């Protein structure tokens, strides 16, 4: 079987298209690359959706944590502590058993026990908590002068937040937030390791790498391939977040711009 055929058969195997049976013997490098690459679709799916949705919740949480009212502040603080203080691994486990229980209450919750919905919710809440902490830190370090200037212009309430505070927060938080996004993508590999089962052998990149390592009894080929894909993905994320960062900093003189540096600020 040529490599082209392999790609045709297995490129979308992780979504359930193409050849139903996974290869069982005489594995080629091409099959390794295709299957693990196919699994990357799920990693990207979880990563992109969780980052995008988590971004909004994180903003709410950060503002709530910064609020003077303890009704808003306390829940936000607890939420952030709970999700940042416990390993994602254990969060997945609890979410899965919770979702199974919900399922018996009403069929409305049925999708939650499958990874595409359930794991996404966990990742969404998790990244929201981590990002909220980053945004909160940035919110705290807005230069006093910015706020005084806004006051001088007569800006108050929502418009002050929207036009002055929020853009500065984003600008200050962006480098750290980039790292959080990268770690979130890395964390998507945990989905099928803890709690959530794989259906019809549709799994993420790590699932297929494990499958191949198990069938070939050789861990030295599939895992480095997985690593290769993730290094590529990391570079792509850094590129996109760098573009946004440029936009956030476009009003500043060249020397004052913050660069997106891949720093291990937060991980799970």
């Amino acid at each position, binding site marked *: 079987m040529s490599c082209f055929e392999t790609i045709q058969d297995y490129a979308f195997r992780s979504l359930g298209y193409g050849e139903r049976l996974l290869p069982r013997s005489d594995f080629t490098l091409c099959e390794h690359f295709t299957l693990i690459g196919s699994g990357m679709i799920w990693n990207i799916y979880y990563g992109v959706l969780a980052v995008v949705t988590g971004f909004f919740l994180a903003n709410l949480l950060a503002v709530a944590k910064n609020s003077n009212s303890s009704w808003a502040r306390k829940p936000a603080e607890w939420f952030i502590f709970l999700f940042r203080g416990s390993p994602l691994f254990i969060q997945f486990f609890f979410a899965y058993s919770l979702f199974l229980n919900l399922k018996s209450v009403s069929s409305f919750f049925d999708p939650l026990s499958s990874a595409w919905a359930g794991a996404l919710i966990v990742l969404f809440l998790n990244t929201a908590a981590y990002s909220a902490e980053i945004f909160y830190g940035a919110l705290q370090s807005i230069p006093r002068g910015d706020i005084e200037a806004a006051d001088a212009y007569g800006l108050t309430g929502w418009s002050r937040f929207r036009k002055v505070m929020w853009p500065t927060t984003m600008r200050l938080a962006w480098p750290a937030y980039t790292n959080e996004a990268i770690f979130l993508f890395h*964390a998507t590999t945990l989905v099928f390791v803890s709690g959530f089962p794989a259906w019809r052998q549709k799994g993420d990149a790590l699932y297929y790498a494990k499958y191949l390592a198990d069938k070939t009894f050789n861990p030295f080929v599939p895992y480095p391939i997985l690593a290769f894909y993730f290094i590529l993905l990391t570079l792509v994320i850094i590129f996109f977040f760098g573009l946004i960062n440029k936009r956030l900093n476009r009003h500043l003189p060249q020397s004052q711009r913050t660069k997106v540096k891949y*720093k291990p600020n937060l991980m799970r």
Partner: protein
Amino acid sequence: MRSAIFSFCSDPATLETFQWMSCYLTTGKHMAFYVSFGTVLLLLAFAAPSALLFGFGGAMAARARFLPLNWLGRGYIAIVRGVPDIAFFLFFVIALDQGLEYLRHKVKCPDWDQPIRQGNDFIVCDIAKLPLGNSAQWIHETYGFALAVVTFAIVFGAFAANVLYGAMQAVPHAQIETAEAYGLTPRQTFWRILVPQMWTYALPGLSNLWMVLIKATPLLFLLGVEDIVYWAKELGGSKTANFTAYPHPDWRTQYFLALLVFYLAFTKVSEVVLNRITTRLSHGQATLAGEAQRKTT
């Protein structure tokens, strides 16, 4: 044959709930579970300083003027951080083990004429085995634990290297220039001026890294160390009466709840301690935090 702590534990099926529980929670298996909490703490105690050491080496390499060393440092930081830690853990321990045995084999058995790789098998001469085939089990365990520590150190060392590299850059340039003006050699400048001052800049990053390290410990079982997650799964799974004196349904939720509490408490304690250290380190430093301290006192 069960050795029980309480004498009434000899026939658990007849016991009341409270007594049953006290027997159940003191079985040898539970003792192993409790010990595994110590294993996790011990691993952290070893892994954190080793990671810092790797990080320091990595950061120094990345700053080096000698190009190959510079590339090595940068490559190490970039590659290890670009890969999910779990992918690393899944093959790295076996690779490390084989690598060490290979080196020992080359040194100790130069006359060996058979290939090391025979098909799928990885075979080194007996005296090159790590640990030796006839060594006691605790040596095997310690070796496995040491491999896990080294793996953690390499992975988190890359992150630490990045933090330390940034911290070294953050030390105000005037400090270095002043040192040079006083006639200090580059080596003296590095050790006497740069290193003592960089910690305050590195601390926020290192604190985060410590939190990250704590939360990476559930992956220990992938490295073959029987950690708290392993035992929680083993103990929590449902048990039928044929194979245990303490049959019970699926109790994994309860056991994982215990783990959750452990991690939350550990995080909280770490936060408090790290905040104190930060306050101390900021003392007398030319940073905002240091300035704030100066004004209040």
